[in-house]
């Protein structure tokens, strides 16, 4: 019964929603998502239409089935991973590539529904904030790196280490770099960074406008042949892009190979959505059901290929903008989905002339936005610091999906390590010793206490376990053996809970 309630869209917010504020938030979000959707489609290697469909349908479905103002849609890390997973199997951007991306999205959604059935939302509680910040920063570095080719007008290249690309571009810039593309992307990035100070909500739109103007000027003066500026081209949007994902023998062979990657994408998408949801639960929507959000993500990704869209997840930056603009219910997401259609349709003829270096500039700006000093600074302590650092290094030096697994493992590992520390406060009154223990007492954390208790078997000790939340059988066995030892040597051990 409760499963059914989580599955069905809950429209109880319909009456209580403040529609004016939700609509404003929705329209702002739609303006924000269009450059991002095109960027993320480029990242995953499919035509820009698919990113826009993702911004419409995945956002609409996740708002409809969810119960929060969280804004779904195309997501950086998910898009990067989709593209990287399919790349070995088909030529980037070819029809087969697109089919495989869609099939992969379907499987990602199904895995997320499976996680929902297994009550997986509980698991994501152990994903430490340091690991999430680390993943965000790592993805930011990946974004900036993958924006490099588009920004400088290079051919796509794959390198072993991320810095190789910068090295190649720097060493042979005279032969490789297209100065006009570099100018346009540089202007876009500079404009974005300048506007960000005063216009935090939608600086990206301003940057896109300025970059496009500069690009159009160069393109107009020199023409396509001399400037060699790459343009976005025609984006043909259909109102209802229904599509049945093709699953032939080729697609099965592909799916067999990529199950681990699909799981990594599913977990990563859910992790981001649930971190947002957890944040929302604390700030805006108290009656938020995490399981329902998991189902909403799963069903919207599983249905996405039927609407020619690739998988997405909750978006940090768009959700925070929506909250600032006054969104409190899923209404803003639904408005945003329809607004994307209207805006993309109205802007269609202009989007043709959008230079790709501007898109690369937006990618860099989003990447810079993901590496946030104010989130990283509080992590500079002995527990969070290493988790963050290991995650970032694993992502930028190994790969995103490995980095995510490392992040989970490291955050659980450090949690266990910190949980197995106990504090002993030792005080003496005459010949009596008073020890106050705080921390969990279990097999991994007993060493320190045992050493203290065994140091002098003839003392009379009062052991205060009042601040011990958990005490396992091995701890009880230890107390028993020490009490016996003390009886032999004339000491005493009293266990109390004050």
């Amino acid at each position, binding site marked *: 019964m409760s499963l059914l309630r989580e599955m069905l869209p809950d429209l109880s917010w319909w009456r209580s929603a403040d529609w004016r504020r939700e609509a404003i938030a929705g329209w702002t979000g739609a303006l924000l998502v269009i450059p991002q959707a095109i960027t993320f489609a480029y990242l995953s290697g499919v035509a*820009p239409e698919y990113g826009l469909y993702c911004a419409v349908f995945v956002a609409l479905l996740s708002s409809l089935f969810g119960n929060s103002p969280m804004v779904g849609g195309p997501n950086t890390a998910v898009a990067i991973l989709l593209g990287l997973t399919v790349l070995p199997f088909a030529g980037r951007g070819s029809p*087969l590539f697109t089919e495989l991306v869609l099939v992969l999205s379907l499987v990602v959604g199904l895995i997320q529904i499976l996680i929902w059935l297994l009550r997986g939302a509980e698991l994501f509680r152990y994903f430490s904030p340091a690991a999430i910040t680390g993943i965000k920063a790592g993805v930011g570095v990946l974004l900036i790196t993958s924006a490099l080719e588009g920004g400088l007008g290079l051919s796509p290249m794959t390198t072993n280490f991320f810095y190789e690309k910068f090295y190649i571009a720097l060493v042979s810039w005279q032969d490789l770099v297209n100065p006009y593309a570099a100018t346009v992307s540089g202007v876009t990035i500079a404009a974005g960074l300048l506007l960000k100070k005063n216009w935090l909500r939608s600086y990206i739109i301003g940057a896109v406008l300025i970059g496009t103007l500069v690009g159009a000027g160069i*393109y107009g003066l020199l023409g*396509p*042949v001399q400037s060699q500026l790459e343009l976005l*081209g025609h984006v043909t949007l259909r109102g209802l892009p229904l599509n049945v994902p093709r699953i*032939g023998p080729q697609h099965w062979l592909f799916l067999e190979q990529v199950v681990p990657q699909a799981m990594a994408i599913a977990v990563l998408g859910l992790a981001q959505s649930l971190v947002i949801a957890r944040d929302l639960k604390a700030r805006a929507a108290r009656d938020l059901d995490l399981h329902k959000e998991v189902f909403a993500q799963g069903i919207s990704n599983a249905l996405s290929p039927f609407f020619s869209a690739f998988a997405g997840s909750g978006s940090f930056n768009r959700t925070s903008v929506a909250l600032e603009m006054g969104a409190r219910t899923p209404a803003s997401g639904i408005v945003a989905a329809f607004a994307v259609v209207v805006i993309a349709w109205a802007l269609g003829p202009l989007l043709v002339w959008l230079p*790709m270096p501007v898109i690369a500039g937006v990618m860099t700006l989003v990447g810079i936005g993901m590496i946030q000093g104010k989130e990283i600074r509080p992590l500079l302590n002995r527990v969070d610091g290493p988790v963050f650092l290991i995650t970032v290094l694993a992502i930028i030096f190994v790969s995103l999906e490995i980095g995510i697994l490392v992040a989970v493992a490291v955050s659980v590992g450090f949690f266990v390590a910190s949980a197995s520390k106990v504090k002993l406060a030792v005080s003496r009154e005459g010949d009596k010793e008073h020890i106050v223990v705080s921390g969990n007492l279990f097999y991994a954390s007993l060493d320190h206490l045992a050493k203290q208790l065994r140091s002098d078997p003839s003392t009379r000790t009062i052991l205060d376990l009042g601040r011990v939340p958990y005490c396992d059988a091995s701890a009880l066995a230890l107390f028993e053996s020490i009490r016996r030892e003390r009886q032999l040597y004339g000491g005493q051990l009293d266990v109390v809970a004050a």
Partner: protein
Amino acid sequence: MWKHCINAICEPGSLQHDLSRAWAHERTARRRAPRRVTQLLLILFAASALLGASLSALARPTIDELKARAVLDDYEANIVFGYNIVMETSKYAGRYAGSSLSCTSCHLRGGTQPDGFPLNVAGVYPKWRAKNGVRNGIGMRIRDCFLYSLNGIMPPEESPEVLAVAAYVSYLSEGEVIGRPPKGWGVPTLPDTGADPNPPRGQAIYQRVCAVCHGAKGEGQGPVPAVWGLNSFNAGAGLNNVQKLAGFIWANMPMGNERSLTYQEALDVAAFINLQYRAFDPREGRLKKLAERIYHRLTLIFGKDNP
């Protein structure tokens, strides 16, 4: 000394030694001759079967055969995509196409028609072209077609569309000699007729022969391409050249009744068509052109040295 020599020759591993062992083998083998014949026959049979199989595999599959297969490797999938782009450019490469033309509007029958810009030209590239003054790979050549003949947007060199068309060109070029232009390359160059092209006469011929399909205003309809106007190739395209267009018209038009026009008639029609308006040559920037035009007007009005 002699003995020494013999020893050296008959040392194990030397040629002599191997030969003597082979002769011994021959002698024993001759005794088992019947079995050896059957073995030989079997091997011959297997070899011929293998040869047949590989020959049939070597024969170029048609596009329809490729499309019917359940699994295509990357190259074959790319060929099919390239074929689709060539046949229906605005549907499969709509991102970069501009006009209503498809590749097959000029590269007739999907680039398989000799004297109709056939596409079996992979062996000719890279080569220097006067058009852009640089050495062109097949990718650059395809991109130029998007920019000029399709009046669209120049796709990047590594875009899936360009790679697919390049694969299709390679597929069509199978069996051609590398470095030598294929038979029926491009369009025929018409011999000198001794008379200048005459556009008014061309207009009359156009209205009589061509307008049935291409429309009285050259607008085309359905798969029949527009021959002038904003939906046709632009002023930078290769066909915007009277000689080339005349050769194309003479060899391929009117469809179904090719080579029925005389050289002079083809020349006249070409001259007429190329006098009509079409999108301008994108080699010069639009803004620059606008600025030049405004500057020219201003000098006409205010300039002192212009009469």
